[in-house]
C-alpha cells in the first residue's frame, strides 16, 4: 500500500515515500493528475533514467551536454508550454553517492517582478515560444528554468539567469539519497532539481513519472 503525505507535499512541495510495485505507483500517480509521457513520439508513461556518456545520449538531453557529471538545477519539461506540475522519481535499488538535489529558490519581491517581466525564448525541440522564468498562474507563480533550452529573447532580459543563480545560491538545498524502492514526488512548478556527479554511479537507474496537473 503506497502512502503519500499530501500535506507535506502541499506545504514543502516535496515528500518521500516507498513503492515496491511500479504499477501501483502509476495508479497512485493517475489519481493525482493526468500522467503524460515525457518522451517525444512515445506513449510510455514511465521513463527509465540511466547514466549516459555524452556520445550515447539523446542530443537534446542534459546527458548530451554533461554526460555523467553534475547536472545543473532545472525544472523538468521546461520546453513544454505546460510543464508537468508533479514529478515522481523512484529508485528500484540502492544508489550510493549520487543523490538528487532539491532546491526551493528564494526570491525577493523585486526578483519575482523581474523574473516575470523578462521574456525568454524556449527552444527544446517541441516548438519555439516566448515565456518567462516565473509565470503567473492563478494568483500564484510557476517556475520554468532550464538554461539548456532557454535563452533571453533580447539582451535586456538576460538578468533573469543571474537572479536565478543568486536565488539558488542562498537557498537551503536538500539531498535525496536513494534506497531501494524509495520514491520522491515534488512540485516541478515550485522546485528545481539536479543530479550530483555520477562518475562512480554508472549503474544508477531512476524511474520517472510526469503528472500534468
Amino acid at each position, binding site marked *: 500500500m503506497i502512502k503519500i503525505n499530501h500535506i507535506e507535499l502541499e506545504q514543502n512541495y516535496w515528500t518521500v515515500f516507498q513503492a515496491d510495485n511500479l504499477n501501483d505507483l502509476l495508479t497512485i500517480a493517475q489519481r493525482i493528475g493526468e500522467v503524460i509521457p515525457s518522451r517525444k513520439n512515445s506513449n510510455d508513461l514511465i521513463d527509465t533514467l540511466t547514466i549516459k556518456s555524452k556520445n550515447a545520449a539523446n542530443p537534446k538531453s542534459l546527458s548530451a551536454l554533461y554526460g555523467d557529471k553534475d547536472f545543473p538545477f532545472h525544472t523538468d519539461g521546461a520546453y513544454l*508550454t505546460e510543464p508537468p506540475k508533479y514529478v515522481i522519481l523512484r529508485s528500484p535499488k540502492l544508489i550510493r553517492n549520487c543523490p538528487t538535489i532539491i532546491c526551493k529558490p528564494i526570491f525577493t519581491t523585486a526578483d519575482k517582478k523581474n523574473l516575470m517581466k523578462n521574456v525568454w525564448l524556449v527552444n527544446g525541440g517541441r516548438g519555439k515560444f516566448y515565456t*518567462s522564468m516565473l509565470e503567473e498562474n492563478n494568483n500564484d507563480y510557476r517556475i520554468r528554468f532550464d538554461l539548456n533550452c532557454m535563452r533571453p529573447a533580447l539582451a535586456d532580459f538576460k538578468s533573469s539567469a543571474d537572479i536565478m543563480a543568486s536565488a539558488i545560491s542562498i537557498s537551503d538545498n536538500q539531498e535525496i539519497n536513494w534506497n531501494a524502492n524509495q520514491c520522491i514526488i515534488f512540485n516541478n512548478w515550485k522546485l528545481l532539481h539536479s543530479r550530483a556527479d555520477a562518475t562512480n554511479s554508472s549503474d544508477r537507474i531512476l524511474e520517472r513519472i510526469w503528472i500534468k496537473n
Partner: protein
Amino acid sequence: MDWKHDLLWNKSKVNAYTAHQQDKTTHFFPLWCSIALETLSRATLAFVHPSLLADPTKGSNILYVFGFYNEKEPAKSVPIKTVFDRLTKIIVPFTMKEYDICMNFMERRNRELHSGGAAFEDYPPKVWLADFYRICNILITFQKKEMKDWLSDDDAKIALEMIKKDYNKIKATVKKLITTHKDDFYRKPKADQKTLRAKAEKSHLFALHSIRVYSSHILCPACKSKALSADRLQGLTNHILKVRKLLDKFQYFQQSFIVGLVN
C-alpha cells in the same frame, strides 16, 4: 496552440522592447510599434478567450483552439481589422475613434510592407506616439497589467507621461471651448440670451428622443441652458438594496455633450 494569452503577451513585449530600441527618428520605430500593437491586440482578445482569434469561416480553426490540430491544415486567425472590431465590442474605452487610429496605423504598416512606398517617412512620433501609448495602455490595463509590465521602466515612465499630457491637452481644449462659448453667449443682448435659452430648451426635448445611449441631464457649462451628457455604459456595479428597491449603480464613459446652443 499558439494563440494562448501568455504566449501572445510575451511576444508583444518582445516587439515593444524591439521597437523602443530603434532610432525614433527612423521608420523602424513606427514599423515595430505597429507590430507590437498587433500582437498586443491579439493578446487582449486571447485574454478573453483564444477562440476569439479563430477565423470563423472554417470550423477547424475553432477546433485548433481546443487542441485538435491537423498539421496538414494550419490554423488561420482573424485579420487585424476583425481584431480591432472585436475590441470595440469588448473594451468600453476602445471606441470607434481608437479603432480608426489603429486601422490607420495598420494601413500604413501594410503600405510599408506591401508596396514600394515609404509609408512611415514624414510620420514623426509627435503625430502618433501619444495615441499609440494611450491605446496600448487601454489594452494593457484590460489585461490587468501595467505599462511597466510591457515596457522597460524608463520607457513606461515616458509613455505614461505622454498619455497624461495628452489628457491634459484635451482638458485644456475643452476648457478653452467653454470659455469661448461663454463669452459669445454673455456678450449677446439679454433678450437674445432669453430666446436662445428657450430654443435650447426645445432642442433639449427633441434630443431626448433621438438619443439611444445612456444620458444624464446637466446644465451647459457655458450658457447654463438645459443640456444632455450622452454616455456609453461602462459597467454595472453590484446591485444595491435600498428600502425595498433594488438599485443598480451604473458607470459611464462620457462620449458626447449635447445642448441646443453649444455644439
